[in-house]
């Protein structure tokens, strides 16, 4: 699990190679905008080669500086914008995408994390479709033959059996979310909204076919994005694994990406009063000496979300390292802990005064 960064760059390189020079395949705007989603992922026409996750022309891969942890799944992200239309830049929230946009994300697990680019098993592909009345969220479950994925409204459980980065066998049950669970994270004032494509998290390089380039520059040049200021004025999230970045920034970025979709005034966990968005600058609101409101047994007999200098007395670390439902955070989308993240948060809390 420690070589995810390596995997990511391999995958980026792979996506870059395959997205170059392939014959154009028509993406069906009709399917994207239909009232009911297609039964098969292939019907969208997003991919030149589904199994290899080679995007069709007009479908652009992207990556995030710091991604959400989803049981260690490797993720392939793509965006499709209807012809001649651009997303509007926003300095803080997700970009404002035009009607007809599709955001596509495939979750995959390698057979062995030590050779993580080989034998990837595709599990699910989630799509967010921008309709006139808002975003629609759907999940497609990949078949065993890995030839296509089928719409799954009620969610699914998939047994994952792999070898961890430490060489130890790693088995757990992965959850494909059901339709209403999508909103458990993707809700902004009760409406479905994308989470990943924010300026700060896209403001990093991607290994495109024509060479490595900043994604926001790339999107702007390709007329996919309007209104972006000079790069120097665009906020940039840290890569949480980048040990050369400031500890505070790495930890706050990790919390922003992994927690703040719920833990913000507009999110599903607004009632807790714990707000973990990157821009939150009131310490008690991001947990410092804040008592829990509704933690229940999630408190782990600890008194405060964050006790400066004392990760072992902080509820935050207790809930991030737990895998017990009702205790673990996030509530959805993970079954195993991410020890590297726990370590980062512990170091950060230990550094607080």
């Amino acid at each position, binding site marked *: 699990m420690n070589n995810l960064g390596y995997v990511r760059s391999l995958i980026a390189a792979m996506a870059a190679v395959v997205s170059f020079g392939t014959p154009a395949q028509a993406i069906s705007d009709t399917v994207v905008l239909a009232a009911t989603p297609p039964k098969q992922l292939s019907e969208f026409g997003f991919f030149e080669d589904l199994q290899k996750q080679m995007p069709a022309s007009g479908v652009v891969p992207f990556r995030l500086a710091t991604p959400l942890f989803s049981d260690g799944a490797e993720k392939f992200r793509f965006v499709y914008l209807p012809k001649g239309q651009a997303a509007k830049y926003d300095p803080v929230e997700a970009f404002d995408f035009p009607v007809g946009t599709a955001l596509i994300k495939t979750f995959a697990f390698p057979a062995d994390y030590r050779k993580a680019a080989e034998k990837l098993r595709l599990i699910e592909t989630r799509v967010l479709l921008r309709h006139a009345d808002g975003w629609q969220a759907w999940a497609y479950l990949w078949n065993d033959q890995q030839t296509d994925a089928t719409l799954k409204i009620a969610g699914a459980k998939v047994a994952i059996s792999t070898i961890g980065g430490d060489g130890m066998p790693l088995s757990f049950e992965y959850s494909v979310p059901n339709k209403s669970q999508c909103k458990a994270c993707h809700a902004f004032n009760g409406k479905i909204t994308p989470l990943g494509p924010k300026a700060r998290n896209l403001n990093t390089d991607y290994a495109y076919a024509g060479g490595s380039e900043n994604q926001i520059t790339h999107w702007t040049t390709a007329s996919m994005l309007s209104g972006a200021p000079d790069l120097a004025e665009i906020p940039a999230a840290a890569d949480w694994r980048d040990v050369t970045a400031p500890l505070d920034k790495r930890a706050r970025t990790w919390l922003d990406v992994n927690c703040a979709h719920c833990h913000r005034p507009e999110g599903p966990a607004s009632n807790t009063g714990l707000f973990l968005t990157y821009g939150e600058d009131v310490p008690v609101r991001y947990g410092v000496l804040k008592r829990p*409101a509704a933690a*229940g047994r999630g408190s782990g007999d600890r008194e405060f979300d964050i006790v400066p200098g004392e990760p072992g007395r902080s509820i935050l670390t207790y809930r991030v390292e737990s895998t017990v439902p*009702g205790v673990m955070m996030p509530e959805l989308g993970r079954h195993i802990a991410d020890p590297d993240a726990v370590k980062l948060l512990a170091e950060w809390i230990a550094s607080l005064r």
Partner: protein
Amino acid sequence: MRSILIRAAVFASGVCLAGLVSAAELRVDAGDGATEKLVEALISAQPGDTVVIGPGRIELTEGLSLDVDDVTVRGAGPDQTILSLKEQTGSGEGLLVTSNRVVLENFAVEDAKGDGVKSKGSDQITFRNLRVEWTNGPNEKNGSYGVYPVSSKHVLIDKVTVRGASDAGIYVGQSENVIVRNSRAEYNVAGIEIENSMRADVYKNVATHNTGGILVFDLPNLPVQGGHDIRVFDNDVVDNDTANFAPKGNTVAMVPKGTGIMVMANRNVHVFGNRLSGNGTTHVLIGAYPKDYDDKNYMFVPRGVFVHGNAYGEGGNAPDGEVGKMIADISGTPVPDVVWDGVTRIPEYLSWVSAENQVYVDEQEGTSFINLKMLSQLLLPWGWWPDTDISGYKGSLPEPQPVKLPQDGGS
């Protein structure tokens, strides 16, 4: 989308809308595939539909959620239709509702790993004739809240039973216009808790064998603060004698075993016509938020509490925990029926507390009372004594209007 299309068609043809948008009944029976069918029914339900769950037990491995307005979820009875979460591996609650005008009735949710049945941000949410239970009895590993509306409006909780919650059985948080009635809360840490909420009527409930029976709290560092206009009346709050099993760190972990009704912070709280007995610490406890906090907007002392016309039986014989000891060290045992910590803000302590912010106690002859005068104890350790003369606290406060809910024949 279906209903939008139907509505458009109806509009075009000029036919009466109400007649055509017919409510469908989506039926789910226990047995093979019931879990998936239930998940699908809650997702595919359209406004106006009823999801009917037949009798039997359905084992769920993940919590359910409902995000469609105007839906009723109805079981065959709280002992007939059982949603069991014993094998739950994901999500924070058994059933989560995030939509409006929803009725949940006649079923049970058992052994949720987190909370039982929760609504977040719902307007007009009804919990009726439900049972939410942790079947192994009080245990700190039980989920936190049984019936749990939060950030909701127009909340009706009627004829529910909650047992075994490691925090509060019926917990209403940051909500407004709330009725909790005809319900039974037992073997929870807190039976019924109204927290950071506005306009709540709590009546004709039984709170028994909890650590604390009925709590009315206002807490700091929350998006909604300043709970007010709460009426707690005609309840039976008896024999709350379960040792506190809340995990530390939670506010209710400080509640002593044998607390009847507790008012902490909050404004304009009326406690009357309740029957209290067998509460070993004290029947009615009124106090300030006792912990340190960092919140300029928070009012930590209760503002306007009126306790009157309650019937007190035996109690106060077994003061429990730190709080119980602190009280009993001053009052002796049995602890009086009504206890106020006497904490006011320093400027008020040095001058006066305005009439609408005072604590009034007007009870039958023979009701015992103590003002612990905790602030004096702190400020004047050598010249301080508690006040047990109940007659000095007579008075009254104007009572809030009864809460009316649209789903309950109100407006």
